[in-house]
């Protein structure tokens, strides 16, 4: 187990700059999730950690050792690939024992170690199968088993669940989390699914086009996004972001709607953010026209319009309103986020 320090790392493929100075500190045993839209450089950063891509500038340290020039096999890391990269001509046992076979471990050691990992992952009955005789979830587990057997300093996962169906994904999410709690190995996990990030991470690193937008515990990102990008990225359904300006007894949206501001709000606010789940139904609220109602069972999502401004709302109670009808809604004052218009930075409030 080890800490991982990524210090001002840059990456360029020829003339194309992909990472522009990324810094992340990862504590020993921490579960860090890199999240961001497609093409933002998550995989590239992970592959640089693994040693599969060289580092254009900056430094990566695993434990006390700077690994910029350390070849992958000496970095003591294990990686689970998005396509699992199982060796198709080897059985599950051979796949998991491969690293030990390369290191000329005795047969008993291999059997003991693979047995241990297989037991953790429930793979005991499958050890003699070939990868193509396994289901997607089983392959995923074998890939994890291959990593566990290595007993590495750091686990790297590159979108390991993206090939699984929704239900299995939730199950494997829990398994990976549980595994981490059991083994307490420093883990870097890449995903573009912010729910995965929120549920699994000790710390989330939100990336956008080669930069870190914000890094912190999931709830901090949820409660206090530092900028518009993070505000829009974290949370599902996404936060309502309304452009406009302070004035007219509140926040006047470009569409003309007036939204109430919390006390002591900065006058510079250019964007008003409110999460759908932080809008309440109140008889004394602002009248809004219902555009769309989507009941999900546990909550009801409603898209409502105040003037020209559309707001997505998520109500815990069941709403029987139909499109065209009027409801009265009110943002929870303590949970309004205000951002500067130009830079998109959060305004202290």
């Amino acid at each position, binding site marked *: 187990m080890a800490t991982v320090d990524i210090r001002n790392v840059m990456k360029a493929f020829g003339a194309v700059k992909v990472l522009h100075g990324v810094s992340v500190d990862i504590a020993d045993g921490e579960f860090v999730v890199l999240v961001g839209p497609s093409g933002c450089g998550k995989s590239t950063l992970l592959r640089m950690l693994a040693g599969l891509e060289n580092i254009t500038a900056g430094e990566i340290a695993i434990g006390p050792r700077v690994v910029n020039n350390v070849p992958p096999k000496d970095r003591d890391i294990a990686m689970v690939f998005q396509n699992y*990269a199982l*060796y198709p*001509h080897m059985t599950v046992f051979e796949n998991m024992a491969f690293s030990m076979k390369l290191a000329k471990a005795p047969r008993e050691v291999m059997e003991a170690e693979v047995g241990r990992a297989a037991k953790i992952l429930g793979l005991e009955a499958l050890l003699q199968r*070939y990868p193509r005789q396994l289901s997607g979830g089983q392959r995923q587990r074998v890939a994890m088993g291959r990593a566990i057997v290595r007993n590495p300093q750091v686990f790297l996962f590159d979108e390991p669940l993206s090939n699984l169906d929704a239900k299995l994904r939730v199950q494997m999410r829990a398994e990976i989390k549980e595994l981490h709690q059991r083994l307490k190995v420093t883990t870097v996990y890449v995903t573009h699914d912010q729910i995965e990030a929120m549920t699994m991470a000790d710390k989330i690193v939100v990336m956008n086009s080669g930069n870190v937008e914000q890094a912190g515990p999931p709830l901090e990102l949820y409660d206090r996004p530092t900028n518009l990008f993070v505000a829009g990225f974290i949370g599902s359904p996404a936060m309502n972001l309304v452009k406009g300006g302070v004035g007219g007894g509140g926040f006047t949206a470009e569409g003309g709607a007036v939204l109430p501001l919390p006390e002591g709000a900065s006058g510079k606010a250019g964007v008003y953010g409110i999460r759908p789940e932080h809008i309440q139904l109140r008889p004394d609220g602002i009248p809004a026209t219902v555009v769309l109602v989507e009941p999900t069972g546990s909550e009801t999502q409603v898209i409502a319009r105040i003037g020209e401004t559309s707001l997505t709302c998520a109500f815990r109670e069941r709403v029987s309103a139909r499109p065209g009808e009027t409801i009265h809604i009110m943002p929870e004052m303590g949970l309004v986020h205000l951002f500067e218009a130009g830079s998109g930075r959060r305004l202290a409030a």
Partner: protein
Amino acid sequence: MSATTTAPAWNRVRQEPGWLARVFEIKIVLVLACLFPAVALLMTFLTYPLGLGIFLAFTDTTIGRSGQWVGLENFEYLLEDPLWWNAVFYSVFYTGVATFGKFALGLWLALLLNNNLPLKSLLRAIILLPWIVPTVLSAIAFWWIYDPQFSIISYLAVDVLGVRTTNIDFLGSAWPARWSLIAANIWRGIPFVAISLLAGLQTISPSLYEAALLDGSTGWQRFRYITFPMLLPILAIVMTFSIIFTFTDFQLVYAITRGGPVNSTHLLATLAFQRGIPGGQLGEGAAIAVSMIPFLVFATLFSYFGLARRKWQQGEGND
């Protein structure tokens, strides 16, 4: 002005099939019609000559005289014929050594080409050249290269490098001639092997190598445990073809040495031709040709069953 135009009224017409189309609707007619060209071609150019060859092998036909059925006499005679044994020996030796050389060098080339080299496609085109040139042309080139007087190799060795004082006599005696022919065959066969194996290499996912890299493998171990086993199925097929082509080779040997000196470089194919056409003994020539069949069947079965069957590819149930 109102711009609304209504589409002209039309009726969907259901096409009535003509009589020809109706005839082809009958399955058996369709099957026969589709099979006919292929079967006719195969019968004319494959089955008939093969059948005739096998038939001739059991007769004493000579050119100009249709023969009598003589049963196994031709084969009994062959078994006592030192020239036939000689040709069997050289055919096996030629095939074995040349196949080994082609695969060693072809695999090496394929591995090189599978890296990200500059001018990759140009290199590939160059590699294919020996394969594209008609065999007889390259045979003539080799004949020239192996010429006792004008050989470029001799010229380099004697006049440029000065490592020898006399020209090399490539084709004048048995063993040098045998090795020279093998070298020519390897040169000619490498492209086929290299390009086929390259195609096989490119089907191996790069992430397997990355996984192996993280698992701590050395370059040799990656070849030994990933590349080679994953290439085996293709290797088996290519090897089968290569063995068949090499064993039945005719052009190179006939163009360069005609089986000489003193019949030392006869392959079964050249010997069969020699006996049958210039020698006029059609029956005997055919018997020699037929005697290749068991070797070919054996080689095919060996490489097919020895190398091609891999459980991990076939996905059979394991329990």
